[in-house]
């Protein structure tokens, strides 16, 4: 703060300088905002313009009848349905794997950890949050190589492995949001519950978790979005361009983000490219929708407990 006061004092004898300096800053910041919004607007408009017209039944299923395609009775050759189904399976499986360790670890950090354990585990979670997604994929790849060399010679990259690596990727999101939601529960409420004689576990189960549920949900939805959009992890852990509907935990699979990348790299015709535009728009809408839902939940939660009033 001492430096702050010094600069404050230094600024005061030269008000004219300050008056001349800040309009520039004002202008620059406004310019930056307009430029950014312009860039984003161009991007969304471009995707809508190119991807909007192809957004129909044919984009999903191609020439195959819808019901047959959904049930997997007939393969879909020129639609993105297999990729979409693969992404949905991947996301759900990831969530199943990450939910317990993520929320549990968040609860542990917020409620049970001592100061030392908190610092250590908090640092570990921060480091995990900074690990690039492709290194997560590499981890899965090394696990398969290890299994092949040791006791499972026919192990191969598959849906389950990709989900496990994605679960590791979204773990920090879940942990941090659970922890923050619990730590934001007002002190009065904790005191009240303790004064009423509830045991620690009962307080957690009947007061803290229900109160923090909205915040935790928003973390879960963020994790969903993150696992739906990530491409680098699945590139190393078993995604392929043509697999049909995912056949099981041990099978290769298709996924929406990889389909976009693959078409961009290898497209032969304008129809294929149009499909990539449609797929991008679908992925963008999916991720954006999840994000909006999460931020609505989180802001409602914050408004409810702002100032410690219920």
């Amino acid at each position, binding site marked *: 703060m001492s430096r702050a006061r010094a600069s404050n004092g230094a600024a005061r004898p030269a008000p004219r300088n300050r008056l001349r300096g800040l309009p520039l800053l004002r202008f620059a910041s406004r310019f*930056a905002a307009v430029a950014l919004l312009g860039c984003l607007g161009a991007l969304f408009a471009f995707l809508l313009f190119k991807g909007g017209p192809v957004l129909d039944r044919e984009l999903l299923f191609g020439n195959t009848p819808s019901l047959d395609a959904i049930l997997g009775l007939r393969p879909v050759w020129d639609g993105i349905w297999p990729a979409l189904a693969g992404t949905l399976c991947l996301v759900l499986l990831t969530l199943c794997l990450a939910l317990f*360790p993520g*929320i549990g670890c968040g609860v542990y950090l917020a409620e049970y950890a001592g100061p030392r354990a908190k610092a250590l585990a908090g640092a570990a979670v921060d480091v995990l949050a900074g690990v690039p997604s492709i*290194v997560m994929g590499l981890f899965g790849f090394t696990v398969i190589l290890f299994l092949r060399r040791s006791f499972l010679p026919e192990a191969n990259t598959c849906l389950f492995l990709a989900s496990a690596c994605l679960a590791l990727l979204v773990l920090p999101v879940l942990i941090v949001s659970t922890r923050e939601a619990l730590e934001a529960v007002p002190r009065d409420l904790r005191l009240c519950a303790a004064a009423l004689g509830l045991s620690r576990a009962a307080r957690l189960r009947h007061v803290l978790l229900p109160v923090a549920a909205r915040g935790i949900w928003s973390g879960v939805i963020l994790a969903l979005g993150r696992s739906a*959009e990530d491409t*680098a992890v699945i*590139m*190393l852990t078993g995604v392929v361009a043509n697999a049909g509907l995912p056949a099981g935990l041990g099978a290769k699979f298709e996924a929406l983000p990889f389909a976009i990348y693959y078409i961009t790299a290898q497209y032969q015709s304008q129809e294929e490219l149009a499909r990539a535009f449609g797929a991008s728009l679908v992925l963008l809408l999916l991720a954006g929708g999840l994000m909006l839902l999460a931020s609505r939940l989180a802001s409602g939660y914050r408004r409810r407990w702002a100032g410690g009033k219920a």
Partner: protein
Amino acid sequence: MPASATAAKESGQADKGPFAAFLAAGIALTGIVLLFAMVIAFALPAFRQQGPGAVLAWSWRPYQGDFGILPMLAGSMLLALSALALAWPLAVLLLCGMLPRGPAAAGRKGAGLRLRRLGADLLPWAIRLMTAVPTVVYGFAALFLLTPLVRRGLGGSGLCLLSAALVLALLILPGMVLVMEAGLAPRLQRLCPGGLALGFSRLELLWHVVFPSARKTLLASALLGFGRAMGDTLLPLMLAGNAPQVPGGLTEGLRTLTAHMALVTANEVGGAAYDSLFAAGALLLGVNTLASVAARRLARCSEPGAPPELRS
């Protein structure tokens, strides 16, 4: 799990709830440790190798037996730093537009003012939404929007350092703005009553007082942005051209460590090339771990005293 059992005894509780939490924390931490152990164990033999075929060399010609990945390391660093140089000032400027919004302007009327407020309301919302845009969508759109512009303006193929850095800047921007906002907004809030009474505007308070006193938060956000830029795979893969060289200018292609890893696994060049894959992964892991540890230290130093917590 003996560690968690003793911890449970210390807290005086041995019922099911805490045990589940300990178990969950144990699983999560085991995952982290396993990740580091596996990647480093596979990378060590690659780093040990000397002479021809060593990974710490400046030439990548897999068919002649040269597996050097130093050009990719240089490319990653260069690309991340250029993206940061673009995005960090932009984030500071955006923050200058977002943070000092007070109720002061609300009473005044006028079409221009209303339009400006609409823009100011739109900005935080847009930045929140930007965090959700999938990387592959950025890359895909930039391939058809940005690269033709670069190709026409500067020549070459359009797949170069400049295109990749521009889009990467867009990718790391929202995260940095949100970190800065979380760190600086409470400081500005605390200064506001006194500072406004002295006759400063909110923007002046932010620029002259809050920014100089919050250098660590600003630096931490830069480190986080750098880590994010180093770790991204799809944008360099789609936009940077993937030539295994150290770029000499803005319009030259480059290959990053991440793109290299994706390309090697896609093409399966052979056994020795896999070694470079693990080495690249370990290098990335090292750089990003350093960045996040440093960012964490800085962020903690700059915290003005965390609120005391209730524990029973």
